[in-house]
């Protein structure tokens, strides 16, 4: 059982977090009855704030839970997260300032707004909105799994731990829903800064303290298996395609696009994107925790009390508990806890924008601005609780599996969104067929790889070795989108000459 001072520190800092969330309403005041004020903080965020806000999307429970957990169980393969974030910023530097400029000019709030305008196709815009909403849901669920991991470690040994955990999560979500309702993206930005400060302190403290107590990294790497030191040759294609597929997908997620569009200028967006790889250093340290934990007997002993499948997600919180001084554990655990909470808020807001602007408004075009903002606020609340209900009703490993599938789905909007920014010759019909083909083939390949059972792998065995399915499905999608557009162009020009 943990000492009460951890809980005191944890709760006090959580109160500060709540205060900041509500204060967001008054920060850089704007009329929050306008969608762009509520959802994009009035498009006024400078280099530093965009850096923190998009950084908050990176340091999600994905980095605290899924990556260290993968490294812990499978070894170096899961270190792909580091080159992946580096590559994703290269993609972002090329694509996002252009999207920002168009969005500012024409008032877009979502990627779907852009697609509708660019290709003059409601069908394609609605399909992209649905893909975004569906892919985002397991991502929110994963955040909750991360928060759950913190609570599991904190409450271990107490009576009624399960009930206490569910009540704590519910309370946290009610508070989160209340301040995103009133403050919008401003609340999320302020709390993102608070969260990032805690996270950076934690990451630096862990790496310093753990490496001193275990007497250098050398011993750990000698003690663990070879698959923790480097990649075996047959995993090289998997590593490279996981980097590529994830890097192309990250900035297609609705929450990443909201973050980008909240920047004050394309120039500020570029500067903050260029600096974001530095964030990856913290991510690299967290990933290494999956290996270093093997050298911390207290943490390993604690983990052995849990079923093998759930040990991975507890690596970071238990390492915090068993290597840092107790008051400091409270700070670090809260950092991880709100590290799930803040992105969950941003994600639910982005989903709500897609639902309201790109689905409901398409069906009821004469929606007033006032109803639009009301529906957006209400649905962002609903999406949070849908994700929470999902986590309460299925095992934690399901959230991680579905997150794998989400990544494959979101990558399929790349031809319309990214290629649409630069390539003039693309047509709507081939894009629609390509998107469908990408999604269907992606789902089928995932199901086939996992023998139609529980989803644990997103790598398809091919003659070139295991390949990340998102990349194959995207290849099919791109071939149809570009090939189809070329054919259509030829048919059109033939028609013109015949006339």
């Amino acid at each position, binding site marked *: 059982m943990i000492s009460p001072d951890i809980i005191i520190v944890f709760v006090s800092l959580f109160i500060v977090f709540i205060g900041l969330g509500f204060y967001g309403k008054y920060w850089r005041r704007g009329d929050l009855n306008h969608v762009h004020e509520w959802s994009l903080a009035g498009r006024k965020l400078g280099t530093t704030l965009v850096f923190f806000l998009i950084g908050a999307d990176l340091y999600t429970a994905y980095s605290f839970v899924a990556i260290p957990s993968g490294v812990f169980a499978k070894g170096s393969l899961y270190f792909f997260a580091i080159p992946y974030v580096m590559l994703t910023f*290269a993609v972002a530097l090329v694509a996002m*300032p252009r999207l920002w400029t168009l969005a500012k000019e024409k008032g877009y709030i979502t990627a779907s707004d852009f697609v509708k305008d660019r290709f003059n196709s409601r069908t394609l815009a609605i399909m992209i909105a649905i893909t975004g909403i569906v892919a985002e849901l397991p991502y929110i669920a994963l955040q909750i799994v991360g928060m759950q991991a913190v609570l599991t470690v904190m409450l271990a040994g107490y009576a009624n731990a399960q009930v206490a955990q569910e009540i704590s999560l519910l309370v946290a979500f009610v508070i989160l829903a209340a301040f995103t309702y009133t403050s919008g993206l401003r609340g999320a930005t302020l709390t993102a800064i608070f969260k990032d400060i805690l996270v950076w302190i934690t990451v630096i403290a862990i790496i310093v303290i753990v490496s001193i107590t275990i007497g*250098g990294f050398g011993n750990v790497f000698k003690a663990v298996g070879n698959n923790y030191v480097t990649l075996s040759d047959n995993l090289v294609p998997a590593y490279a395609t996981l980097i590529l597929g994830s890097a192309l997908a990250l900035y297609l997620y609705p929450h990443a696009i909201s973050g980008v569009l909240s920047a004050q200028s394309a120039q500020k967006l570029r500067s903050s994107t260029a600096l974001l790889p530095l964030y990856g250093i913290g991510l*690299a340290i967290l990933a290494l925790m999956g290996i270093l934990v093997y050298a911390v007997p207290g943490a390993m002993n604690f983990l052995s009390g849990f079923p093998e499948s759930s040990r991975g997600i507890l690596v970071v919180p238990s390492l915090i508990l068993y290597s840092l001084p107790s008051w400091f554990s409270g700070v670090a655990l809260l950092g991880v806890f709100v590290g799930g909470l803040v992105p969950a808020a941003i994600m639910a807001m982005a989903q709500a924008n897609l639902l309201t602007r790109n689905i409901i408004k398409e069906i009821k075009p004469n929606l007033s601005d006032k109803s639009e903002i009301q529906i957006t606020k209400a649905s962002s609340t609903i999406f949070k609780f849908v994700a929470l209900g999902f986590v309460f009703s299925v095992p934690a490993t399901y959230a991680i599996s579905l997150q794998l599938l989400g990544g494959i789905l979101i990558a399929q909007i790349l031809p319309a969104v990214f290629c649409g920014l630069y390539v003039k010759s693309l047509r709507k019909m081939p894009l629609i067929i390509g998107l469908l083909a990408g999604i269907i083939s992606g789902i089928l390949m995932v199901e086939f790889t996992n023998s139609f059972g529980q989803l644990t792998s997103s790598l398809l065995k091919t003659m070139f070795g295991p390949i990340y399915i998102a990349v194959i499905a995207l290849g099919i999608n791109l071939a149809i989108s570009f090939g189809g557009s070329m054919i259509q162009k030829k048919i059109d020009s033939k028609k013109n000459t015949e006339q």
Partner: protein
Amino acid sequence: MHSKTRYIILALLILIPSAVNLGVPIYNRDAPELFGMPFFYWFQTFWLVACTGFYLAYSKLVEKKV
């Protein structure tokens, strides 16, 4: 600067770091170690700093009026 040269430099500032990131065999080795950490891990962490350099140069060059 000539606009074509500028364009090539911009492309290289994006393509060089990306080629290294995707060229997994370049860094998939255990030696030389740094403080006991295999090359695989410390190189990719170090490369984050190098990438920041490339990307900052790219964004400065894009902003520059020709």
